[in-house]
């Protein structure tokens, strides 16, 4: 039952799968932070159209299953509407990156919004009183403090995102979970499913645990003292 052979026999393939996971989640981490920041700027903007867009986007994406979002990207936009990224090999990769980033951005936005709520109103008033405009106040005074207040929660969002990246396999992108499924589907595979699960889970922890520790450390280090 605890036969680790299938795990080690297919180790190269598994490593390749994790490399694909890393490539997907690293880019999605950066993009979702950027999208999320843009979204939260919309949500607190004085311009009603932008506020409505931000609120609408977050509510739709946050309440749609990720599988649907990614299938919409791959089957809907890529296949059906033929909106392909150039270089047909990587078109599913790019759709997975976009889908996962777009989805995660909604959660980043909400984390940042709760961060903005921790910044005292007086900070924004002082910023306005020295002549900073709305965007400048947000960029220079409010968001830097909001970010520091929610570094740890943002870490949780990223950990969830790394694990969520396995859903991309449903959308045609071969990452660690789809490698695992391929191995399980091999005709020669008879036993060792549990060790394989354990191995893959350990692989994810190698990615997520340091992420959590790093963000926890950063949170303490960057905290704004009031």
């Amino acid at each position, binding site marked *: 039952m605890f036969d680790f052979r299938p795990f080690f026999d297919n180790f190269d393939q598994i490593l390749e799968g994790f490399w694909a996971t890393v490539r997907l989640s690293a880019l999605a981490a950066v993009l979702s932070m950027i999208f999320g920041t843009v979204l939260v700027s919309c949500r607190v903007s*004085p311009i009603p159209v932008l506020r409505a867009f931000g609120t609408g986007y977050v509510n739709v994406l946050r309440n749609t299953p990720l599988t649907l979002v990614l299938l919409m990207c791959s089957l809907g936009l890529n296949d059906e509407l033929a909106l392909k990224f150039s270089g047909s090999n990587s078109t599913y990769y790019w759709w997975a990156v976009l889908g996962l980033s777009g989805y995660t951005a909604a959660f980043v936005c909400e984390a940042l919004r709760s961060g903005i709520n921790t910044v*005292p109103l*007086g*900070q924004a*008033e*002082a*910023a*306005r*009183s*020295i*002549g*900073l*405009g709305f965007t*400048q106040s947000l960029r*220079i*005074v409010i968001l*830097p*403090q909001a970010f*520091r207040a929610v570094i740890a929660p943002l870490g949780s969002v990223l950990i969830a995102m790394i694990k969520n990246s396995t859903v991309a396999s449903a959308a045609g992108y071969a990452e660690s979970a789809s490698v695992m499924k391929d191995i399980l589907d091999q005709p020669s595979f008879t036993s060792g499913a549990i060790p394989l699960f354990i191995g893959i889970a350990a692989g994810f922890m190698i990615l997520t645990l340091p992420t959590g520790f790093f963000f926890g450390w950063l949170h303490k280090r960057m905290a*704004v*003292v*009031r």
Partner: protein
Amino acid sequence: MTGSEGAPDPTAGDGPDDLVPERSAAGSGPLVVVEHVDKHFGELHVLKDINLTVNRGEVVVVIGPSGGGKSTLCRSINRLEPIDGGSILVDGKELPQEGKELARLRADVGMVFQSFNLFAHKTILENVTLGPIKVRKRSKQEAEKHAMELLDRVGIANQAQKYPAQLSGGQQQRAAIARSLAMKPKVMLFDEPTSALDPEMVNEVLDVMTGLARDGMTMIVVTHEMGFARRAAQKVVFMADGQIVEENTPDEFFTNARTERAKDFLSKILTH
């Protein structure tokens, strides 16, 4: 004129020469003119037909019971609050409703808050240089040089590299004054600048403000510090229930107020 200094003259003075802005071409009329200003918060009528004129170099103390609309008046003057009716002219110009133009003109009106509101994630020096660099487009070097002069003037040059939370309340408020001054405002608003301070720190802040008044800065100060009012102000405005109930000289006001409402208020704050 009641003070021993005589009329403050912005063009004389031995303070730093760049502290008080040159008289603008816009002229020699009053610097702040508040006319028929009305303001509601929902049902609540917080400013009722307010009229107030502040001349160049004049220091006006606003005093009155809590909830009377003093803060709202200050905040309306630099448009942190929009007004419902009337007009507010600063140096002959009405501040625009919103947008970039407002942001730029707003910096002409310095504001010092009760709770200091220093930017918590920036050093004292960065707090003071932020506006000059981002709004006035000064070079970093130039802004820092001027900031250090201002911090020196308010007596905390040695705290420049610290963060706000590392300073005492009195030091923070002095830093906040320096931050406002760095924009070279035409007029400074102070909303109860010493109310949040421990008693032993009140004077260090009042001293800085008295110095500013002496150098000819135009100031509107909400405060209950009678000593400061007598020393530095030319005019006391008593506000209650959203109205200006009495305008008087400090000496007259504190010894011989004209209105019952003011007498009643003074008897309450004087008993302790």
